[in-house]
């Protein structure tokens, strides 16, 4: 546990009023130590050059020094449940076949035929062996070369290692990660302290209830950064301020690869002084998209109860019913707050007992001015019942709104509001005369953290 535990508001450097740690003091249940962590070392206040988001040169540096070195989330284990099932993971100009080779074994091969270089697999699917569709070179599921037609013409290959080249694979929380760098640090070390912080949320037991993808016209970092601070709630999502403690949020960084924001929910924004508890309760149920119900109909708050407590207890009851397990040891915070972690460089995961959101931003092929945004919702299912099949990916066209994906419910309209900024940020940066952005010291500290870690890779 950190020495900084229970550091409260830090003078003028934080928003006036109640802090997230104050709210934890109000919990009736023992607060787990990961929520008491409060670590935000000062990282500087310098402007950041827009070249990091808009220049081809910066993209080329990321191509050489970032993507080949980092652990990156490819898909869920449940996406490839049977031996021979595979997912094609593509990043910039690289292509990997992530395939199940045994009940508990997954391998990742470079997706390129060792004969003439054609992609061995064009898309996700299932095969019993990898047969190149061009001339028929064949490998078994374990990557061992089985042969090529007209073997008499290839005696010069007899002495060569014809096994399919592999990249490193690791798993956590039901996610499959790969790393191109054979000398990388182990995944466990890279992820720390994520597994410890998610101990109460066994994501490997969750199933993928929704998966939506769309191209967004901005650099992948502009996309990721849209979800790394709650400061934008005031102007971008003003309709949720009645139940979102935007400026009360806590922002943490943990080492180089993990950061977190905790935005208290079920309390009104400090920007809105005169909201009643009843209004907070009604709006969070109607608009949040993350609560156990999406309607406030029939919900009357008992006298003396706060909206934060009432909504947490409603969630506790309904989530327990859905998952068939007691949630008696869950704090109000865990039952309703927006507790969102980022795993460097491009994956973000929410905590929670049911309906955990995941985001991933990848460059759109080799284009640095657009990215592929994916969101998944991980769900629980009653203990002892069969795990539901994972949702098929719903790929929206670039001109479609996220609200056209009914499976993400209330998140769709929120994403549409974020989407209204993302492409405009990219265009605005291209037009910028200032040539730099200025970040908030605290509320946008996770963005500075992301860029400082990127620099560590680019300068390594």
């Amino acid at each position, binding site marked *: 546990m950190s020495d900084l535990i229970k550091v409260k508001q830090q003078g003028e450097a934080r928003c006036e009023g109640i802090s997230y740690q104050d709210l934890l003091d109000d919990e009736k249940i023992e607060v787990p130590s990961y929520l008491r962590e409060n670590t935000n070392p000062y990282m500087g206040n310098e402007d950041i050059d827009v070249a990091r988001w808009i220049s081809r040169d910066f993209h080329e540096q990321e191509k050489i020094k970032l993507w080949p070195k980092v652990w990156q989330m490819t898909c869920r284990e449940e996406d490839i449940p*049977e031996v021979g099932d595979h997912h094609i993971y593509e990043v910039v100009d690289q292509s990997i076949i992530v395939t199940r080779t045994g009940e508990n074994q997954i391998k990742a091969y470079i997706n390129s035929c060792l004969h003439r270089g054609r992609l061995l*697999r*064009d*898309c*996700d*699917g*299932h*095969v*019993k062996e990898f*047969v190149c*569709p061009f001339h028929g070179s064949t490998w078994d599921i374990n990557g061992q070369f089985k042969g090529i037609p007209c073997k008499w013409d290839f005696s010069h290959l007899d002495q060569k290692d014809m096994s399919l080249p592999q990249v490193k694979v690791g798993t956590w929380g039901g996610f499959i990660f790969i790393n191109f760098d054979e000398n990388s640090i182990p995944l466990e070390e890279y992820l720390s302290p994520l597994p410890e912080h998610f101990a109460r949320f066994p994501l490997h037991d969750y199933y993928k209830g929704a998966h939506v993808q769309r191209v967004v016209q901005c650099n992948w970092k502009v996309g990721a950064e849209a979800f790394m601070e709650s400061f934008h709630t005031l102007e971008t999502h003003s309709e949720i301020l009645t139940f979102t403690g935007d400026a009360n949020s806590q922002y943490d960084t943990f080492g180089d690869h993990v950061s977190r924001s905790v935005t208290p929910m079920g309390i009104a924004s400090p920007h809105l002084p005169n909201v009643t508890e009843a209004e907070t309760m009604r709006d969070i149920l109607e608009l949040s998209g993350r609560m156990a119900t999406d309607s406030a109909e029939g919900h009357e708050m008992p006298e003396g109860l706060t909206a934060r407590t009432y909504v947490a207890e409603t969630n506790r009851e309904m989530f327990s019913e859905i998952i068939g397990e007691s949630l008696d040891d869950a704090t109000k915070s865990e039952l309703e707050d927006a507790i969102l972690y980022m795993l460097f460089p491009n994956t973000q995961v929410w905590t929670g007992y049911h309906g955990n959101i995941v985001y991933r931003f990848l460059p759109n092929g080799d284009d640095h001015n657009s990215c592929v945004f994916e969101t998944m919702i991980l769900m629980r299912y009653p203990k002892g019942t069969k795990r539901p*099949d994972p949702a*098929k990916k719903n790929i929206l066209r670039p001109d479609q709104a996220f609200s056209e994906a009914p499976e993400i419910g209330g998140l769709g309209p929120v994403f549409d509001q974020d989407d209204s900024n993302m492409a405009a940020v990219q265009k605005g940066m291209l037009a910028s005369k200032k040539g730099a952005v200025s970040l908030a010291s605290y509320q946008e500290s996770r963005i500075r953290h992301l860029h400082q870690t990127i620099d560590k890779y680019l300068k390594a």
Partner: protein
Amino acid sequence: MTTKTDTLIPAADITDNQSVAVILEGKNILICRTNGEYYAVDNQCTHQRASLTEGRIRNCFLSCPLHGVRFDLRTGKPIGELTKVPLKTYGIIVSDDGNLHIELD
């Protein structure tokens, strides 16, 4: 004109994620079952005319055993780059006597 072929095979003879190939009026047709529903498609991959008889079926998708092209059994549409041509699909029903009937054009 639509012809109904009577008494094809008992629906119960096919279990989930299995298929049976039949020849009807000279056409090689693959009858598939997935998620409790029955589908009938031409038993010939539109990529290289391979037989789909041994193809794996999961969640309404049939994978060609040769290069793994996946076809959506509901629409016949392929996924991926190897072929853009959909599989021909046929209407299929389970009659009151428990047998499958196919609609051939």
